[in-house]
């Protein structure tokens, strides 16, 4: 394809049925370079295409357009086009190019976070997850992005619908870690501690060859939640990976013991931890931390609880 105009014409012509799309797809792949070079010019071509019928072509153009530099004025219009596209696109077509779809959704998430309106992204990402999934048991990269937005916008209930699905198929192990970790946080926010324990347990016992930051944080919260809910910290089950068993114990040992001491000091365990997981660190908290002679880890945990995702570069 030489020009974007020709490509657009092809998209419009070849989006009728499945064979035509199969024809179109390789053409689009070949034109990626062209699209990238012409990124800033693509806006009018997007208007010519219908996101519902020409979903695949629209996706390629949108992805190339958004990968270029975006001015502030264009940003809000871009957000609207992202949302409109996600709501009206055809699931079969976008599943042919899942990576592009995922990167478009990630850009939506970045924009929404940049403009500090995470709630704007919650409904679109929920739709996106449902469209990208092959079945409700399939975990995609978008699941964790969606849960992150739910957490940051405090719309915990919105995430429940997706969280309640059992997962049997996973694309990437990192997705599972993040998904279960954020899922645990959402359940903690809703005070459904048994389910939170389940999710965090999954992170701690997931197979891993090298220790990662997500599981360390998850383990710390796992200890605290099991103290609230069960009054004690259960030992590692047999199927925990060796890496996890060796390393997590070191990282979290001090926290575990001190937290136990704190709880036993009857400083109102429930309200204290309410404050943590209610995401508003209170003065009482730091006093308790100082009292237990243990300012740093609890402060870190509280700060982390208040900020969730960005630390992990998610």
């Amino acid at each position: 394809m030489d020009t974007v105009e020709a490509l657009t014409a092809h998209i419009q012509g070849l989006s009728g049925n499945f064979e035509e799309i199969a024809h179109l797809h390789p053409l689009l792949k070949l034109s990626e370079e062209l699209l990238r070079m012409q990124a800033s010019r693509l806006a009018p071509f997007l208007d010519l295409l219908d996101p519902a019928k020409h979903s695949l072509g629209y996706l390629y153009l949108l992805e190339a357009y958004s990968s270029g530099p975006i001015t502030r004025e264009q940003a809000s219009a871009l957000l609207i086009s992202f949302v409109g596209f996600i709501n009206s696109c055809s699931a079969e077509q976008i599943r042919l190019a899942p990576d592009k779809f995922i990167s478009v959704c990630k850009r939506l998430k970045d924009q929404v976070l940049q403009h500090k309106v995470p709630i704007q992204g919650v409904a679109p990402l929920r739709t996106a997850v449902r469209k990208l999934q092959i079945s409700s048991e399939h975990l995609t990269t978008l699941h964790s992005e969606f849960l992150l937005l739910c957490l940051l916008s405090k719309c915990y209930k919105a995430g429940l619908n997706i969280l309640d699905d059992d997962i049997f198929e996973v694309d990437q192990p990192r997705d599972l870690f993040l998904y279960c970790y954020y899922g645990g946080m959402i359940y903690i926010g809703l005070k459904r501690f048994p389910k939170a324990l389940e999710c965090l347990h999954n992170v701690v016992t997931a197979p891993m060859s090298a220790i990662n930051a997500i599981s360390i944080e998850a383990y710390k919260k796992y200890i605290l939640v099991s103290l609230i809910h069960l009054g004690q910290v259960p030992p590692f089950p047999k199927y925990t990976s060796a890496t996890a068993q060796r390393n997590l114990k070191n990282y979290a040992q001090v926290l575990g013991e001190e937290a136990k001491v704190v709880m036993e000091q009857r400083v109102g365990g429930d309200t204290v931890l309410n404050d943590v997981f209610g995401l508003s660190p209170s003065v009482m908290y730091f006093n308790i931390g100082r009292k237990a002679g243990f300012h740093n880890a609890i402060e870190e945990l509280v700060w982390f609880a208040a900020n969730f995702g960005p630390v992990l570069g998610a």
Partner: protein
Amino acid sequence: MDLSQLQDALASKSYDEVAGICDELMLQIASMGVSFQEEWPYTIHLIGHLYDSDLNSARFLWKSIPSGIKESRPDLVAAWKIGQCLWNRDYAGVYAAIRGFDWNPEAHGLVAAFQEKYTERVFQLLVSAYSTISVADAAQFLGMSEDDVTNYALQHGWTFDSGSRMLTVTKPKIVTEQKLDPSKLQRLTEYVFQLEH
């Protein structure tokens, strides 16, 4: 903003759906990039959550409301007062908070329905917790005058002793369904027989 779904629910008195509809509408409108905070019916949204006894959602909603709006809307503050009494388990305070504010017509139906539902809930609590209760205490829990509370209790089958001003609780009989009927037993036997042979 298209709030017709919410208005329909209020008009048809399906108050238990109000919170869910509000949540969904809020997400949809937010995704359009519209800044909805000024015109959003937060009071109805909040009371909808209280109606569902979903104090967590009510709390998160309160936290997410910008402080300018909190200050400029007295009905919202009054609605949150009810939420606070519920959170602190201040049973009598809930009624005081409801009565202490002149609700606008839109919210009025919802608040009245909430009050009724709450009264029933507290009544059930009393039934399960007390065997005898003084009229004064019951009046406080149920937010009614002593005469009203006596009538209410008598209607629900309690007995009243005017000498000591005490109400005796009658717990409703728990009817356990007869789960084991002969045809099911027969089927079960057949299955086991098939499996074993």
